[in-house]
């Protein structure tokens, strides 16, 4: 009696972790009906406003064309918790019939060769190369674009820039001058929002265009384990910038607890002038501050050399079919995926949510009335050599703790150099887990 009493609670700790896996495996596949020619497909997307609206828009448009097929949109959390859901459901064979997930390194971590159905058909050739590359594993394409390309750089408040007589910076030192002037004018120069930890990464991830300009082979060397952030000066710069915005007092007072939505509010209302961010966050402005939509512009994170100025871009997420989808459902799912990548499907996505950047399908042009941010991104993507995909689309290795490390660097808890070294260790774990040579 005594023995079991003291053992049980500790056993539970270990037990629960493993038991939950075992239990999850017991749950069978979905029982969506496919009787009488009617098919119901389940479609898992993250619960951000943009994703849900895009998914529902696509689902409805497809259902109108194919009344026999109904698509149920299911939601999951964003970020790390969402990764958990997707990985667990895939590994237990419990995934929905189609699902949306990131492209690039996160896509690679799902082991697409085993978990997904490769896509075939003419439409695959119409996908933009930069996107196709980010959903390809072993020469097979697994996804079609969900949403648009995004820019990762600095969103800035145009009226405030005009009022202070500032120009869009082409080098980091110009950015420093601008920030000092904004601070002197009593406004927040650089918004940071570590209440949502993922937002801490932009000054590093968004700096990749500049890294690639200085070290063109960085992505390959990094994947091979030969190049590291801590001892590649170009790559270390992003960490140093993250530290600098804090040390120079450019950030908002509540940077430790503010969330992404707070940051976008400050930016839209002009209390904060520059926000290192992904452009998809503009959906927040479109929803809550529609009058300020065109008050916000975008520029790539400037590097040291004005002549190589450019921006880092993010590929859209993808729509994938898990290997567990079979029979009628597989056919319907393949047809839906082809539709999503067709000009019609692309148009349905544009109608569902205002685009945040160029589309991932060739022949699908943006409407003329796009926002200022999208116009700004296009000036980079349409100019040769002025845009580079983010590192996570060029290398399968992205350490999971980057956001926490950068919160430390950006809060003055840790310095840039040791932050970068710590991240290299973190990336090593990911590389070993993926079984990559050289680590």
């Amino acid at each position, binding site marked *: 009696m005594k023995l079991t009493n*003291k053992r*049980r*609670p*500790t*056993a*539970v*700790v*270990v*037990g629960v*972790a*493993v*038991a939950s896996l*075992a239990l999850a495996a017991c749950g069978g596949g979905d029982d969506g009906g496919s009787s009488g020619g009617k098919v119901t497909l389940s479609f898992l997307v993250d619960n951000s406003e943009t994703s849900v609206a895009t998914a529902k828009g696509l689902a409805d448009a497809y259902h109108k064309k194919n009344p026999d097929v109904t698509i149920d949109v299911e939601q999951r959390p964003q970020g*790390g*918790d969402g*990764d*958990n859901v997707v*990985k667990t459901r*895939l*590994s237990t064979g419990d995934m929905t019939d189609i699902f949306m997930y990131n492209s690039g390194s996160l896509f690679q*971590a*799902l*082991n697409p060769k*085993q*978990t997904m159905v490769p896509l075939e058909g003419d439409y695959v050739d119409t996908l933009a190369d930069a996107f196709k590359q980010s959903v390809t594993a072993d020469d097979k394409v697994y996804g079609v674009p969900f949403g648009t390309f995004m820019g990762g750089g600095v969103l800035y408040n145009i009226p405030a820039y005009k009022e202070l007589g500032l120009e869009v910076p082409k080098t980091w030192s110009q950015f420093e001058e601008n920030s000092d002037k904004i601070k002197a004018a009593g406004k927040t120069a650089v918004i940071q929002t*570590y209440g949502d*930890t993922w937002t801490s990464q932009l000054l590093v991830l968004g700096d990749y265009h500049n890294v690639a300009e200085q070290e063109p082979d960085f992505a390959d060397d990094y994947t091979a384990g030969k190049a590291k952030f801590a001892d590649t000066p170009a790559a270390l710069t992003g960490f140093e910038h993250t530290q600098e915005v804090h040390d120079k007092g450019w950030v908002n*007072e*509540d940077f*430790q*607890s503010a969330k992404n939505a707070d940051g976008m509010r400050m930016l839209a209302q002009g209390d904060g002038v520059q926000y290192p961010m992904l452009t998809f966050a503009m959906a927040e402005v479109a929803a809550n501050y529609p009058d300020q939509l065109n008050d916000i512009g975008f520029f790539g994170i400037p590097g040291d050399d004005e002549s190589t100025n450019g921006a880092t871009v993010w590929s859209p997420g993808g729509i994938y079919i898990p290997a567990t989808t079979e029979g009628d459902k597989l056919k319907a799912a393949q047809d839906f995926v082809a539709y999503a990548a067709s000009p019609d499907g692309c148009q349905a996505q544009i109608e569902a949510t205002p685009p945040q950047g160029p589309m991932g399908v060739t022949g699908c042009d943006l409407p003329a009335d796009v926002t200022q941010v999208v116009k700004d991104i296009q000036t980079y993507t349409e100019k040769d050599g002025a845009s580079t995909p983010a590192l996570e689309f060029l290398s399968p290795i992205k350490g*999971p*703790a980057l956001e*926490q*490390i950068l*919160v*430390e660097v950006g*809060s003055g*808890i*840790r310095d840039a150099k040791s932050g970068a070294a*710590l991240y290299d*260790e973190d990336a090593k*774990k*990911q590389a*070993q*887990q993926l*079984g990559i040579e050289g680590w």
Partner: protein
Amino acid sequence: MATVIGKARVEEPAAAPVKAPRRKHAGIQSHYPFWFYLPAGVVYAVLFLVPTFIAFYFSLTRWGLFSQEFIGLDNFRQFFNEPGLLQGLKNSLIYGVITSALKVVLGLLLAVLLTSQIIARGWLRSVIFFPVLVSTIGVGITFTILMNPQQGLINKTLEVFGIHGPGWLTNPSLAIYSVALVDVWKGVGLATVIYIAGIVSIPRDYFEAAEMDGATAFERFRHIILPLARPATVTVIILSLIGGLRSFDLIWAMTGGGPGFSSDVIASVIYKQYQAGFYGLSTAGNVILFFAVTLIVLPIFWALNRKQVDM
């Protein structure tokens, strides 16, 4: 404890053709036939023992979505090199000790108060117990909002008195303590109830005798309640220490282990590894947590129980 109930119940199986009563001599304390234990044993084995041993194996592998590769003790080596680990270990200890100490002290004092003759005693008892019933995540989110350094109610209130409140959850050296305090707020009700049961079960005779001898209220507390409520103290310490050492949900809801890694505990380090897809590594972490908790709790359990016997 099982003897009375056990004998009453054993009659039924005895009537069956199985010669159950004879088994009595086989085991030392076997009041039931063997098959009577079987269902519980199977459930326990399938849901607890088997996963535990499988976990030991998987902790030695690099375990992906579909494959695993045996890598010996590499996971343990890597886990001990984890930057957040030392901090996590320290935080787990701090958290466990603070929460169980405060629960013992506050729980005992509240129980003494709530067993005395005060107005609205029943109502007060339920008020104290109420937070135990609320969802931990809900409590976490609520307190995150209350503890917001700029807009939170706590710092707004302090401002009225001219005090500039700290960043309860955003100051790296403060965050873990703030969460521990919320844990105490939420959990002290259970400790109080355990103590109330302990105090109420102390025979009235002792108090009457003490009163005859002219003992003061403090002396009654010191010499009667404190020693005779020891079983309750043992329960509260063990429960809250184990709970504290493996605490996760409240910390995750309030800080996510942040800012940075400053409020990471072992469980959140493990969870983050699991989230990243490092299943083998996080299983190794669980094995370590299992041994750490056992190592800490077993000696305390023995020590506390021995004293109980001495009395």
